[in-house]
């Protein structure tokens, strides 16, 4: 029977099908971090059991970590306590631990791929909804809750009903200044924030084929923002070139075997999806969000729609615009910006800093804007220095912070104050996501750069001749 890429990877990992219930799915690799793991370890302790496969489990600290002065003790006692708990649990159960100060420390969805933990055709879970990122490699990767973290620690398995299948094709070529982030925000704006709930997505078509791994990770990362548990892209030469030779990638004979498996990972020509969408990539503009969920996005030159033109209830829509301090029919261009945040598991990779730097080169940071540039890992941080980007950024009045989740979720010290407007390359514009009362507009690193040098929402296409 014809199978989709998703079917092939899922079916290979099913240990048992429960009648009238979920599948028991074997998990190849389990990533953990400090926020969603401590209660899972307590559960193991109370049951008196060990981690079944510590060698398949990897721990990094990212949500609570400060992004300046990482050599100093963590000031917030609650954060410090949670970070210490991860370290103690990792040691006790024999799990490799990349804590604050470790060379491999960074955002879990940035370091996983960098060190080759992420492999095509694998099943990967983490107690974090943006685990969908790893689907860029043709893996089945999805976020889980803490009970499920405990389940995977204890048994390396998870119980999941098999999701339905959706394919999203984006054809053609992207226009100047249009990045993978814009493609993702465009798709979410079309499907809405719940349009893919219950589905696992495969992204296909020329636009994704031409993307780098960094770009594919940005797209797959945002799959959860339309409700999909995950999104994946069939591995190709780009994928294999990225994976080969990384620390945790298979080596020697094991690599040859793995490669033969990777080459089977594509959807059969006559495989059927439960739902399919096709969009023309050449019509996508740089995007920006105007509301309080990632589905509330529009092309940057457009106006905020009337309530009558959006799906859902008027009261919810009005609450959302009220929170943002925006009105129907207003243009986004020219709106004042107080903060710019470039980073997160969505856009904290080298390509994102290259894009940002290409636009600000030779310009100056706008005076009234606070700009946080936060690499996703030490590798990204080093690349920024090695490629000479830091010199250009410094010249333009910017500085670089240290790796971590930073201002994406208002859990560490990097918070946007109440009422302030932030252009963020992160993934969520929910009320209070970047700090109580903070107002977030999601966008690409290029739109963020345009805001950083002008102090307002600006179409990046008007600012540079040659875009990366």
């Amino acid at each position, binding site marked *: 029977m014809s199978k989709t890429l998703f079917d092939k990877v899922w079916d*290979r990992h099913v*240990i*048992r099908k429960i009648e*009238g*219930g*979920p599948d*028991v799915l*074997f998990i190849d*690799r389990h990533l953990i971090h400090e*926020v*969603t793991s*401590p*209660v899972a370890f*307590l*559960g193991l302790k109370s*049951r008196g*059991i060990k981690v079944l496969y510590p060698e398949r489990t990897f721990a990094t600290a990212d*949500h609570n970590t400060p992004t300046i002065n990482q050599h100093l003790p963590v000031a917030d006692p*609650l*954060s410090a*306590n*949670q970070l210490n708990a991860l370290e103690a649990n990792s040691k006790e159960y024999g799990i490799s631990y990349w804590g604050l100060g470790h060379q491999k420390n960074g955002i879990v969805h940035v370091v996983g791929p960098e060190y080759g933990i992420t492999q095509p055709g694998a099943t990967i879970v983490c*107690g*974090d*909804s943006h685990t969908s990122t790893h689907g860029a490699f043709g893996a089945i990767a999805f*976020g*889980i*809750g*803490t*009970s*499920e973290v405990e*389940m995977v620690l*204890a*048994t*390396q*398995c998870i119980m999941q*009903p098999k*999701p339905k299948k959706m394919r999203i094709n984006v054809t053609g070529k992207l226009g100047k200044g249009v990045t993978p982030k814009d493609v993702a925000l465009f798709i979410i704006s079309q499907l809405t*924030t*719940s349009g893919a*709930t219950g589905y696992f997505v495969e992204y296909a078509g020329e636009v994704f084929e031409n993307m780098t791994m960094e770009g594919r990770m940005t797209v797959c990362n945002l799959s*959860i923002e339309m*409700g999909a*548990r995950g999104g994946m892209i069939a591995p190709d030469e780009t994928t294999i070139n990225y994976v080969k030779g990384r620390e*945790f990638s298979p080596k020697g004979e*094991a690599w040859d075997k793995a490669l033969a498996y990777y080459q089977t990972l594509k959807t059969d020509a006559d495989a059927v999806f439960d739902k399919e969408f096709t969009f023309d990539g050449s019509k996508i503009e740089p995007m920006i969000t105007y509301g309080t*969920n990632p589905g509330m996005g529009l092309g940057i030159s457009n106006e905020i729609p009337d309530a009558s033109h959006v799906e*859902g*209830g008027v*009261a*919810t829509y009005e*609450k959302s615009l009220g929170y943002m301090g925006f009105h129907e029919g207003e243009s986004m261009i020219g709106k004042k910006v107080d903060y710019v945040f470039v980073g997160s598991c969505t856009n904290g990779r080298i390509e994102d800093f290259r894009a940002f730097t290409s636009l600000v080169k030779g310009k100056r940071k706008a005076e009234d804007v606070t700009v946080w540039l936060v690499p996703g890992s030490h590798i990204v941080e080093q690349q920024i220095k090695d490629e000479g980007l830091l010199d250009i950024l410094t010249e333009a009045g910017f500085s670089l912070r240290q790796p971590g989740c930073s201002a994406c*979720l*208002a*859990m560490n010290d990097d918070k946007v104050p109440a009422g302030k407007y932030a252009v963020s390359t992160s993934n*969520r514009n*929910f*009320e209070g*996501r970047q700090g*109580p009362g903070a107002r977030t507009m999601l966008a690409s690193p290029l739109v963020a750069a345009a805001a950083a040098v002008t102090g307002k929402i600006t179409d990046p296409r008007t600012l540079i001749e040659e875009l990366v």
Partner: protein
Amino acid sequence: MAYDKFTILRSSAVPLPIENIDTDQIIPARFLKATERVGFGDNLFRDWRYNADNTPKKDFALNNPIYSGKILVGGKNFGSGSSREHAAWAIYDYGFRCVISSFFADIFKNNCLNIGVLPVQVSAEFAEKIFAAIHANPNTEIEVNLPEQTVTLLSTGEKESFDISHYKKDNLMNGFDDIDYLLSMKKEIGEFAEQLPL
């Protein structure tokens, strides 16, 4: 963690007729720093429930004394966003045992089922009827019957059935969890792992 078995729940309900209530609203990230599962109910809907100076926001349903009960009724697409199970913990810890909505986000729904909160998905029409009934009489009682898989507005007798897998239903009615089941498969898992090297 053990939870109370769920069979039949009769209770008044607290209405939150807002769509796309994400888990950052249910519990903001700054309250996720505990290393034990205690006290999350205090911060349920923290920023909708309290002002910046920690005084209660009087117009929010949880602060309105006319509403009470063990059932929370939310708008469409309840629980979207972050996978934080703390959102489900906060709901349970506050005293809710059931959330009714016309649509749930996936991860939140799984998290609820895993900790003993029953997510009941009803049609958009029935959700409207529930909101209207609570609006007309905040003491209106709803019966959620897990064995029968029905939800009933007791004031009018209007009833709708809901879906849940046999497996999860059995778990909730008996207070079982998935780990007990999976631990019984240890040998099978070990054999399977050998064929799937790292």
